[in-house]
């Protein structure tokens, strides 16, 4: 961090969050008729955002668990609210994932978005503000603002630029996430007052909250509220039914960002808030969470298998993939959690790429039904090759990114939950089934539909945004060290803190205390 001027590094994260907002103001003054210009400007802004995030990754010090590039400015001092941002090994790659996918996604909209381009681009940029903010906020209030901020642009992206049942899907998406958010808000307020009761100071600072020893009974309810909010977002089984609808009806760019980043806000929420703030409850409820995660893995795979719409298939595959992530997080060891974080990134890359690829043929044929295709390998071989690589990455083929994350999750989870992990591992079989079957029906065989016979293969622009994803698929698969080493200190400290706080909180519980007795007043 020393090589860069202090003033620059100190404001780097803020610049990262608000650069897209500056882009929004720029767009406002551009003529709405000049679509090309609007797209180019948005692309430039998001690309600048990505370039700006690179120093964060490069200069990030992987040997410390502390927040880095911290900026803390009092915001509403009388309530103890401050503008407090920072990045650690848990959030680093999610920030990079977001800034990386933004220009990629914008590039994909050049041919697909033609109506209300200006508004579309403004919403995309606002979305980026919210997403980067969510991952960088170290203040509960600030986090909540960004969390809700994300909701609005995505609601409009689905509702305005979506297909078929877009209004239904948009409202469903909004209400599901919002229902969770409200619960979280209540818990945040309760936490806020609890902090005051204990310390005599009003604060919404997350790091201060980490220091609290929250009474065990209170932890249960607060964890439940946070967990529910995040479980809706992830989404965990059985709260997932908004996802297929939202994905199917969202425009390609919306699907990409929704799958790649928005869902990660849920899993990230567990890591940043629900687990470290309430570790006793989190560990005690781990069997429940892990069971839901494993159900999600198998359920998502089974239901994905019988889908007729490619996007819906990919949506259900997300339920399965995020089940893996959740299983890793609730292993509470370094292997599982690093695997979980890496898998969040992997899912962002693979599923993001799958949606982009589906978007490419959708633009040509305006259908996503598997039965409309067949034999595409011969007509558009380059596309088929890219699709194959991404499919294999999603299946978790060793040598590609998905395997590293999945393996670490499973090897970590196996240390603490043997039977569940074995069941989860069977998910690798079904991932191969639903993805390869889809691939075969779309790509192999004879060209049966005349409309497919002369489809053009990927053009230069399409290659330009798929290629970087493919490079990452190989990079993470072959040399994950680049990514894992920056997580080490943070994740190790995370695991140790849970252990220590749990130990301290339970030091005077009677041995052999049942969970019912621990959390409820039954029998007293």
């Amino acid at each position: 961090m020393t090589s860069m001027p202090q003033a620059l590094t100190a404001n780097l994260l803020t610049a990262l969050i608000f650069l897209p907002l500056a882009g929004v103001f720029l767009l406002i003054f551009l003529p709405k008729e000049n679509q090309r210009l609007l797209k180019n400007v948005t692309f430039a802004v998001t690309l600048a955002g990505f370039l700006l995030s690179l120093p964060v990754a490069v200069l990030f010090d992987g040997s410390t668990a502390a927040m880095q590039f911290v900026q803390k400015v009092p915001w509403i001092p009388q309530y103890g609210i401050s503008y407090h941002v920072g990045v650690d090994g848990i959030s680093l790659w999610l920030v990079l994932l977001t800034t990386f996918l933004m220009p990629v996604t914008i590039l994909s909209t050049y041919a697909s978005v033609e109506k209300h381009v200006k508004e579309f681009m403004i919403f995309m940029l606002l979305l980026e503000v919210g997403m980067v903010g969510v991952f960088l906020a170290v203040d509960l209030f600030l986090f909540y603002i960004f969390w809700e901020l994300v909701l609005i642009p995505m609601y409009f992206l689905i509702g305005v630029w979506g297909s078929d049942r877009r209004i239904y899907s948009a409202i469903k998406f909004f209400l599901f996430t919002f229902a969770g958010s409200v619960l979280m808000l209540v818990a945040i307020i309760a936490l806020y007052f609890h902090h005051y009761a204990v310390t005599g100071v009003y604060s919404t600072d997350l790091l201060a909250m980490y220091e609290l020893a929250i009474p065990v009974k209170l932890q249960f309810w607060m964890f439940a509220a946070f967990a529910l909010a995040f479980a809706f977002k992830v989404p965990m089984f059985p709260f997932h039914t908004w996802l297929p609808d939202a994905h199917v009806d969202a425009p390609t760019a919306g699907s990409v960002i929704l799958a790649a980043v928005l869902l990660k806000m849920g899993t990230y929420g567990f890591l940043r808030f629900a687990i470290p703030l309430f570790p006793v409850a989190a560990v005690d409820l781990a069997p429940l969470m892990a069971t839901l995660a494993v159900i999600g893995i198998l359920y998502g795979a089974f239901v994905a298998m019988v889908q007729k719409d490619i996007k819906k298939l990919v949506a259900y595959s997300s339920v399965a993939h995020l089940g893996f992530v959740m299983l890793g997080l609730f292993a509470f060891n370094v292997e599982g959690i690093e695997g979980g974080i890496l898998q969040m990134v992997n899912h962002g890359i693979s599923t993001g790429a799958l949606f982009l690829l589906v978007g490419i043929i959708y633009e040509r044929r305006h259908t996503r039904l598997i039965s409309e295709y067949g034999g595409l390998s011969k007509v558009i071989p380059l596309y088929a090759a890219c699709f194959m690589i991404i499919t294999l990455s999603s299946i978790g083929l060793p040598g590609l990114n998905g395997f590293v994350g999945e393996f670490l999750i499973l090897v970590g989870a196996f240390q603490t939950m043997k039977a569940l992990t074995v069941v989860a591992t069977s998910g690798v079989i079904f991932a191969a089934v639903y993805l390869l079957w889809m691939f075969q029906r779309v790509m192999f065989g004879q060209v049966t539909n005349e409309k497919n016979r002369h489809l053009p293969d990927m053009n230069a622009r399409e290659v330009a945004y798929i290629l970087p994803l493919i490079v990452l698929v190989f990079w993470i698969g072959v040399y994950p060290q680049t990514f894992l080493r920056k997580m080490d200190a943070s994740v190790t400290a995370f695991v140790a803190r849970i252990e220590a706080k749990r130990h301290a909180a339970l030091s005077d519980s009677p041995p052999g205390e049942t969970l019912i007795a621990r959390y409820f007043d039954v029998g007293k």
Partner: protein
Amino acid sequence: MVDGILNYLWLVPALPLLGVIVNSVIALFVERPLLLAEEDHGAPSHGPSTRGTSAPMGEGHGASHAAPAYRKLVAFVGPAVVGASFVVSLLAVLALAARPAHDRLFVQVLFPWIQAGTFFAPAAFQLDPLSSVMILVVTGVGFLIHVYSVGYMSHEKAFARYFIYLNLFTFAMLLLVLGSNFLLMFVGWEGVGLCSYLLIGYWYEKKSAADAGKKAFIVNRVGDFGFLVAVFLIFWTFGTVEYTEVFGKIPGLAASGVLTTGIATAITLLLFVGAVGKSAQIPLYVWLPDAMEGPTPVSALIHAATMVTAGVYMVARTNALYLLAPTSMAVVAVVGAATALFSATIGITQNDIKRVLAYSTVSQLGYMFLACGVGAFTAGIFHLMTHAFFKALLFLGSGSVIHALSGEQDMRKMGSLRKHLPITFTTMFIATLAISGIPGLSGFFSKDEILWKSFSSGHGHVGLWLVGTAAAGITAFYMFRLVFLTFFGDSRMEPEVEKHVHESPYSMTVPLMLLAVLSVAGGWIGIPHVLGGYNYFEEWLAPVFAHGAEGAAHGGAHASAALEVLLMAGSVGVALCGIGLAWYLYRVRTEVPKEIADRVPGLYDLVLNKYYVDEIYDVAIVRKIVNGSIWLWEAFDTAFLDGIVNGIAALVKGAGERTRRLQTGVVGNYAFSLLLGAVILVGFLLWS
């Protein structure tokens, strides 16, 4: 000085990878535009044409069109990288051999691959006597098959794509056998599975080919599930996945009670689930016969000589663990023996020349597992090697036949081909003698060692020997049936096909001849002591199977040299009976087979239809899962879960409708409710 070559061990897998890269560039920038242009010109004229038959397309070979320069480059690069890899392998193995026997272990660490918490798996290669044998077989036989492919695939349009896959396969297979830990073995394991998928589905426009590829991948994934869980269990038990560390810790952990028989049994059985998938044993063998949809050189390389033997390699590699788990050993032996016999019986009835060979491969793999199961790991690996020679030769020979007959695979439409295809016939005949266990040829030595050990070893059993010997007789029968139907008798060829019959080009026949030499002489490095020979092979592998040799030797006590010779004579006798029967049924009284089939139609159909195993799996598993999934989606997800969501929405809406009526706009109503509320509130406060 000689030892220095070992530092270049990484080149062994790296060279085929280089081939993948070069051929990919060619495929992307030269072949793809060319094919697309061609497609656009001749689009409407061809429908479902000859393409998609499992044979080289087009008949106008030779001067039909001069191969474009890029094809020549592919034809050079593809085999050359594997040949170079073979040379490096050979030098490395010689360097290893120059070391004293106890020091024949070389590990080259390239970079840390996956590391998190206490888990660590490096990208590292391990050369020891076992992996030496494997890399020589993979690169040596692999090279010959690459060369053969140049001729065999010369009429294919997607030429570069074929060699990308074939090179990628070689790379993955070398990772599998050279990796220094279980995780790297798994990488190769899945990698070869992928290439198998891609190559089986090479003619992807044909549905059966694409289906077969998918089936292979998915059935293998069932096995991979077992493998993965085994790796978790190994890490949990040993805290590492590196071979040297795991095997080094076995004595200590076994003594301290951490490594119980139960855990050893669990690990080895789970690993065996993986082996059963990859090496096509009961009950997961069903993918291999279908895999014959791929080009024939692929069948030779992947589905006979190398990939399918990976399971045997894995069991041999973990021999130290297996020996701690008698139950697992018994399971391996029984599954191996049962598979050897079961699939041999199916081989009798098949009419497709490649399918006979496919079931034969399943059967021979069963022998290898039988060997491992009775603790004769050396014999298992020995048979792995000799089988690689003669089975690759048989497949390539069948490819030469198919090539000559413009894609015909049905033996009922062959006959009398020995006059037309002298080299193919001679070499295939040698391989047939070898697989039948005729003394002097490679298969005799390896198979006989297995049979002898299955009888004499401490883990052996006379029942295993009987089953193995019976399978040997059937093997000789169905192989000679194949030879007689194909090369002897009257021609049953289609007239159109017969006109074009021709011996294959040198690029194809030279590999056949070299493999024929190996099929004969390959066994001479392991001649049993009782025949006055010296088993160099056993000595070479002794450092890896130190424990294994012990286990086998225990039982050696109740065996005598005379008995060994007697049993040997017995198995040769059984093989000769098989040959004699085949000669009688398919040369002398050719009407009899049909009569037999007619007399026991039920049994014949049962075997002809492969005991209906595929159909049973389809009904009992596949359809249940698919229907269950449809139910999950339609009934549970859409109707129930989403029903709740929409129900709540409807409820809220309904409540809104109702509460709306409270807003009557009549002030009196409002005043009344105000009063009512106040009374309740005051009453509540007074009360409490």
